[in-house]
């Protein structure tokens, strides 16, 4: 395509598409925006429009940030306006240097929402704070795992959120969840988070080989074992991969771990033997990838 002709076509497209949005690149006057954002007597759609217009350069205007924080923290205000204020603030946190002066007030406002009656906003804020590695929030999450009556979120979600800033002292708690079978979702999350815990290697090996276990837990255990104990994993995984009475998706996952994980593919005949009896496209595909990943020298040693 001729670049000059392309430029002409693109200019026409821009003129047609961008028109109304272009004005939004220039923020609304801060005073006007602040007046609308904070006025609970104004229609919600007008206040949302004001937040929309003010958000683009909010860090340059402390009064805009202050009004967004005030709306966000006001439990009596409209949930949609509060969520929009959170969105605008979140967006501006990516302008790290400019936002730094507002960070303490922002975090304090968020912490105040951890007990907010609005569930949707509360759950969003729990994650935002967890992503900030906020110690107060981490403590609240741990408290909730020990005492469900004070839990901010369900156990599975609490574990996920703690995973943003996991510490070694959390491993014991995680092992407890990995060892129980009353909450499979929390158990699987715990297995994911324990993938660097050397003390859990035996647990992973047991789960992987136990056909009575949940398939998701077996697959996660296989992936974890492949990085924790590559040699042991290879041995166990090859046995399962060659067992055509075991689950095909699990076999395919283990082949993927062998070809793209830390445990290197060693048996060149493994793919060939799987392909001879593969009954699902995924198993076939995983075996083909294994064959491509297997080193050439391994092809000469087919017995194993």
């Amino acid at each position, binding site marked *: 395509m001729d670049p000059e002709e392309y430029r002409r076509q693109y200019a026409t497209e821009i003129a047609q598409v961008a028109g109304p949005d272009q004005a939004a690149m220039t923020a609304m006057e801060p005073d006007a925006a602040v007046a609308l954002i904070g006025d609970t007597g104004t229609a919600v759609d007008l206040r949302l429009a004001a937040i929309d217009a003010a958000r683009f350069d909010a860090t340059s205007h402390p009064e805009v940030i202050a009004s967004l924080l005030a709306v966000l923290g006001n439990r009596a205000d409209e949930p949609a306006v509060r969520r929009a204020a959170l969105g605008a603030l979140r967006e501006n946190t990516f302008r790290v240097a400019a936002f730094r002066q507002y960070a303490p007030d922002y975090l304090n406002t968020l912490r105040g929402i951890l007990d907010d009656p609005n569930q949707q906003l509360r759950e969003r804020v729990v994650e935002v704070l967890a992503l*900030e590695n906020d110690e107060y929030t981490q403590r609240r999450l741990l408290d909730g795992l020990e005492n469900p009556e004070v839990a901010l979120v369900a156990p*599975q979600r609490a574990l996920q959120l703690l995973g943003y800033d996991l510490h070694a002292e959390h491993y014991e708690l995680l092992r407890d969840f990995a060892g129980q079978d009353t909450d499979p979702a929390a158990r699987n999350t715990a297995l994911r988070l324990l993938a660097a815990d050397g003390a859990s290697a035996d647990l992973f090996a047991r789960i992987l080989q136990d056909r009575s276990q949940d398939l998701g837990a077996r697959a996660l255990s296989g992936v974890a074992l492949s990085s924790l104990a590559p040699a042991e994993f290879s041995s166990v995984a090859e046995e399962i991969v060659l067992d055509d009475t075991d689950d095909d998706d699990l076999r395919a996952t283990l082949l993927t771990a062998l070809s793209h994980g830390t445990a290197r593919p060693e048996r060149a005949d493994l793919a060939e033997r799987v392909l001879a009896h593969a009954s699902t496209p995924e198993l076939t595909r995983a075996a083909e990838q294994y064959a491509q990943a297997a080193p050439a020298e391994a092809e000469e040693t087919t017995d194993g």
Partner: protein
Amino acid sequence: MAIGLELTINDTTDQGGRYLTWAATPCQLRVSAPDGAVQPIPVTISTGAGSRGRLEFRMSRDGQAAGQLRAELPVDGEAVAFFVSGRFGSPSVDDGDTHIEIRNRDTGAVLSSVPVMVRIRKNANLLRPAERDRFLSAIARLNNQGQGLYQNYRDTHVDNTRLEAHGRHGFLPWHRAYLLDLERELQRIDPAVTIPYWRFDQPAPNVFTAAFLGTTGTSGFARFLPSNPLRVWTTDGQIGILRRPFFEPGTSAAHDDNGQRVRREAVIVGFRGPFSTLTGPFESNPHGSAHDSFSGHVSAIGSAVRDPLFFLLHCNVDRLWAKWQWFNRRFDPQDPGTYQFNGAAGTANATRIGHNLRDTMWPWNGDTRNPRPATAPRTPFPDSPVTHLPGPAPTVGSMIDFQGLGPDAHHLGFDYDDVPYQPE
């Protein structure tokens, strides 16, 4: 015995140099074995028959592009210089699927056919399955379940390094370097790979699938097919990618949990103001908005790189900047409309170190003195067989003219499928 020719592409005869973009790439063609010829050999240089990509040729870097070139090759081995580029709109889909063909004009005989690749960053939603799979395999190998080089990228983009890369004018140049750094490491694993971009202002039904970047699982973790290498993705000693979109990726552009959508491409590219008034709003929206259209790892600076989607998102951010540069002709680093802070830190009217045109960028410069972060996980900047630029310690300014349009400039080895090369 036949006439022997030697073609140098990107200053090398090695296969590693045979990767092209839309930008003019220097070539030299010479007779290595004249086979008894005593007169100059008349040749035509063109795209070989059956090529998937298309090529264009120029006698000078800013000359008129043509589908073929005529040259007279001296038999004494003196080289004829010319430039080759991929024809805009016709990239390769596989390694070596395009040929530079040299024919004897008198006899019509093909004297040489050299395989090349028009290697272009593409829209992830339009990738062929083989292109998609090569990218996934390469990035999974780079990560190696959290024990590979990918960890360096993870360590580079964390909370205590934010100020090097965010919040000021260097935001876009720094991330351009960061993407190129990762892409070069991927190309060491598979030279045909480029980073695809996720166009977040459009639906992407082919991106958020179990075969590519994953669907949304009920657990909050992305779900993958058993054969997808991301199925075993591990970072920080944890398995999986926590990600839940607030939008329906198959039918909607990205938006946050309140329906606030990312700013559209036309608004960014059509913005006529200088870079200094573009970069701030751009960093908030669409960049921040795109991150914030998910819950999970990708939604915060400190954890975003745990999700490989980060690189597709930022590839689109970089594409938008590149397209704005092309549409508004903003490639001259000294033009204040292209970049505001054209000095160095510590001089008059400078901004924070690392955000001025002549500043080198952390981590590639290895500078761990205050106010830089205490460690530098990626140093030096990786070299490439197609260019030695931007060098081991890139400056902010070295990221501006990525196509090598300026005097004595050279391309950086990447281009986008919808951003042409257009010399003045």
